């Protein structure tokens, strides 16, 4: 379970806030989507959960414990983190990238190699073909899968995903989204996922939180949001997928 209580972050000593008085809760095994325009504070929020960024005010609890009272290194090793922009180590092979967390936590070489192999299979990258490749020898979609696999290597109960499907073609994106959903069901981790895309949020998330200029403007299940956007900003965000659906229906009707 992840809980944020009145969390604020200022980069300039309190003059302006990247995140302001944000409170939310993600139940065990649930997926929360963080939505909002560029620069509204999504990444900052996510990074405060694994202490890549320390909050200016407020409290963050992971599994009931305040993160500020935990060793940041130990905390991060427990939490899977998929980086905005992937963040693979360019000088390590795919296998080494995936096995990095077991390796730094002192697991035997043979053990972490085996684990990395399994994880690569899990994200549909056959180890024989991909294990020895360097990140630069992968396509964008393959890199994101490696990023996923690396985050899963710690057997995390909590996953943070910062735009995991950004910059992908719609077909790859769709297949990765489906894989993510099934993996999440299978492994049962709690996840916070940052996205720009309302359709993605509606498909994958149990809860959707919409942010605007550091503030939380709406939170609810996909059904709740569709039934009642609550304000114009959320309504505008919902407008795009709605229009797409409408467009498709019209086309189908015409062809039928």
């Amino acid at each position, binding site marked *: 379970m992840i809980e944020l209580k009145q969390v604020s972050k200022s980069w300039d000593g309190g003059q302006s806030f990247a995140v302001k008085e944000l409170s939310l809760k993600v139940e065990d095994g649930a997926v929360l989507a963080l939505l909002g325009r560029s620069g509204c504070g999504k990444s900052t929020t996510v990074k405060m959960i*694994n202490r*890549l960024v320390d909050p200016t005010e407020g409290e963050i609890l992971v599994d009931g414990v305040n993160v500020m009272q935990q060793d940041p*290194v*130990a*905390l*991060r*090793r427990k939490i899977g*983190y998929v*980086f905005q*922009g992937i*963040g*693979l*180590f*360019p*000088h390590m092979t795919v296998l080494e990238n995936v096995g*990095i*967390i077991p390796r*730094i*936590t002192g697991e035997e070489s043979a053990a972490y190699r085996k684990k990395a192999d399994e994880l690569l299979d899990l994200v549909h990258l056959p180890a024989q073909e991909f294990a020895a490749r360097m990140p630069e020898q992968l396509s964008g979609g393959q890199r994101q899968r490696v990023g996923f696999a*690396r985050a899963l290597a*710690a057997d995390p109960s909590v996953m943070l995903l910062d735009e995991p499907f950004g910059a992908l073609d719609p077909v790859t994106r769709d297949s990765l989204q489906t894989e993510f959903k099934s993996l999440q069901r299978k492994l049962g981790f709690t996840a916070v996922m940052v996205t720009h895309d309302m359709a993605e949020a509606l498909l994958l998330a149990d809860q959707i939180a919409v942010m605007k200029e550091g503030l939380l403007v709406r939170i609810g299940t996909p059904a709740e949001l569709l039934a009642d956007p609550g304000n114009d900003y959320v309504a505008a965000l919902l407008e795009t997928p709605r229009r797409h659906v409408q467009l498709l229906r019209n086309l189908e009707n015409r062809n039928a």
Partner: protein
Amino acid sequence: MDSDLLSQIASQFDTLPSRLGGHIFLSLTALFVGIVLSVPLGVWAAPRPRVEKTALLLTSVIQTIPSLALLALMVFAWGTIGWIPALIALILYSLLPMLRNTITGLQGIDPAILEAADGVGMNRWQALWLVRLPLAMPTMVAGIRTASVWVVGAATIAQPVGATSLGNYIFVGLQTFNPVSLLFGCFFAALLALTLDGLLHGLERAARVRNLRLAGIIGCGLLLLAFSPLILSQFKILGRPNAVAVPGEDLAVQDDPQQNVSKFVVGSKPFTEQYILADLIAKRLRAGGMEVEVKDGMGSATTLLALETGELDCYVDYTGTIWTNFMKKKELLTRAEILIEASAYLLKEKQIVCLGTLGFSNDYVFVMSRDRAEQLGIQDLYELAKQSSKLKAGGDIEFFDRLEWRNVKKVYGLDFEECISMDSTLMYGAVESGQIDVAVAYGTDGRINRYDLAVLDDPAVALPPYDAMLVVSPSLARNHKAVAALRPLLQAIGPTQMQIANGMVDEQGATVEEAAEYLEDSIKKQEMAGTTAEPSVEE
């Protein structure tokens, strides 16, 4: 001509193992210590702008000091010569490129990757070892390569501070006008720099593509390079045996295993007496059946060095020069004591053998025109000192900067109205014509007689004696034929004979060869008469 060139090149190989060895030792050690210092310093400085600025400023300042000056500074800073100051100077020299590249390499890493290192839960050391250093490695290696080229280059000028390196070939070549030696040194220095650079480049590649076998091969290459002088010395290419010579009589009975390779180089400093003596020595060695090459007019400080390094086999030096210039002695002993100490010093410190004295001494003497001296009533330096404040003195270009001058000035309280440095050939005319009142002349100079100059006494013995002595290389000392050919010269040339011979060349337009013949004749006459020259040693 061709075979001559070949034999010249071959003779350079004798000293290659020790010089190349010295060069490799200096360069590799300096690079290694440089890396050990600059990498941690760079890691520490990279995220600290103020430390970074200070460190880079300091190393840049070191860099702007000309390498020769830096070497000299290290000699003063450590109070010793040899490989220690050379090594420290080279280490300082290697720091800048390595430090700068470590810092830029670390700072150039994409911040997203550093965040990823944090994000997966690496601690500071893991982030450094697993991410930051590997990613900075190519830039760092580039810095090491730059440093290696600098260090190999700078090690060539370690010779003046007494460290053996390939620079010995270059310096000796320069000072003795020997292009073969010069090119030989340059060639091997360039070869070493290129080899080292190539190996480092390969090591970087091996690290980048993580090819353990390639890294192993290159590691072996580096080891081979480090030990190459040892391997070279095993080949003994015309190796001259390393000589630890014993002076005097014992030498003649020792047989030189290479008796048949008796080619010797005779040197001279740049003045008449030296040219005559070199010619005399060369003629004697040739008469003894040896091949001789003469290197005339070498810098007076470098003849001894050339003898030490094997570029020269024989020349005439003076006890006072060794005493003041090389042994740096300020106090004065008797002639005999200075002779003994100087020969002992040469043998012990330089492995140079003093065969003995020639029989004359070429001291510095104060001279005045006879009329002027009588008019002022001056016969010795005490009397000169009393009136020196209104007198002008002239000396050769270096005299007034020499220790001897400072000493004699202090002892007698000499305080001339003016001290004028001039070419020694002008000095005698100047004192005769009254442009200067006193000149500091050479005791054996023929012009003292010719101009009828009065020589002032040195009752306090403030000027050191300059007994001419025959100094030879160990290989000549071990060749009994050569020693036998030179022995008749010992105690055979008196001050008058030398003065006459000098005068023949300087005043009467005779050639150096004619003057040498005159000396040879007078030696022959004495041999027949069974006498030696009038002794210059009075004690």
